[in-house]
């Protein structure tokens, strides 16, 4: 399969930069896979897993807590608010995130804020279920 350039950056550092064959991106309106020559798209991400196929045999999974994906002619760039490789992610870390989200929900003042916080919490729970931790 043809390869394209993929970059994953968080505010603190660049987490991944290199050529890959396919990336599964958890879009806010549904997950989608990016292959070479994907049409330019800009999408908001929800909390979920990014699956990176560097080669058919070398795969990597990362957990992101929201962010943006930008597909352009130069490749795919994901701006993640926070990204953790799945191997480093354990139940405790995820639980901390869930607890964080629960507190956000409690502190949220407006209805809009509550809705956003509740969504985030649901997404995190989903991730937890998928990973079976």
């Amino acid at each position, binding site marked *: 399969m043809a390869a394209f350039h993929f*970059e994953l*950056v*968080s*505010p*603190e*550092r*660049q987490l991944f930069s290199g050529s890959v064959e396919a990336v599964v991106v958890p*879009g*806010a*309106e549904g997950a989608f896979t990016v292959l070479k020559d994907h*049409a*330019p*798209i*800009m*999408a*908001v991400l929800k909390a979920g897993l990014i699956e990176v196929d560097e080669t058919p045999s070398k795969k990597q999974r990362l957990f992101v807590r929201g962010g*943006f994906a*930008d597909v*352009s002619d130069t490749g795919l*760039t994901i*701006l993640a*608010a*926070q990204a953790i490789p799945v191997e480093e992610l354990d139940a405790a870390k995820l639980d901390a995130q869930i607890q964080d989200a629960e507190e956000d929900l409690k502190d949220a003042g407006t209805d809009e804020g509550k809705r956003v916080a509740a969504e985030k919490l649901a997404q995190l729970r989903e991730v937890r279920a998928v990973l079976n931790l």
Partner: protein
Amino acid sequence: MPSLKDLRNRISSVKSTQKITKAMQMVAAAKLRRAQTAAEAARPYAKRMETVVAHLASNFDAGSQAPALLAGSGKDDVHLLLVCTAERGLCGAFNSSIVRLARDHALSLMARGKTVKIICVGKKGYDQLRRQFEKQIIELIELRSIRNLAFTNADPIGKKVIGLFEAGEFDVCTLFFSRFRSVIAQIPTATQLIPASASAQASSTGAHASYDYEPDEGEILATLLPHHISVQVFGALLENAASEQGARMSAMDNATRNAGEMIRKQTQIYNRSRQAMITKELIEIISGAEAL
């Protein structure tokens, strides 16, 4: 003419000062390396973010439905200055150069009859600005207790600024910090945070035709812009941290060199006056013997 004992005391005190400045220089050098790596690591994200925002913003040219954070509140009356400085002194002109830039900006705005409000991040800037702008300073944010800057430190500052903007507390927000060029060059910089359109338009490259948006552009921009502001604040804080250590390193290097120079001069005076004393004593003995 100071006595020999005075000179000895002076030399030893300069020597211990030199030890301190030397130690501070080495600490700053070690911290600088860390801060520089952090600042450089954060640049790709900020850069990408800027292109994305610029790109989105270019689609909103003169659009009436553009978000307020992008287009501004339509007025230009109240200015908020977000002045980021260090928590500690002894770093050369680092703090004063940021403060000077902010002060000039504030004074020129006030001369034009605008209202100025100031938020200080970092105690040193607050100390310097307080003398002149006591009434304008609305808040001081201290980051003293934080050892390693993380995005979670910058996010609340960004949120606070947005909160104030939404409450109609100001119309234009400018961020002041020092960009890290190299150890000897830190450039005090002012960046306009809100409205974002001016800075975004400048860096817009245009020529992106058919983009898909998911969800639609307006919604993306609405979530992206507040985040963009936090990212800019975070970038500024990181640049500042690196600049501060760089400035401190060169300031302490100068101090150490000056102390060395002082020790050299004082030692020379000390030796000369000691020699003069011995000569004087010899002359006294010899002329005493001759008189007999």
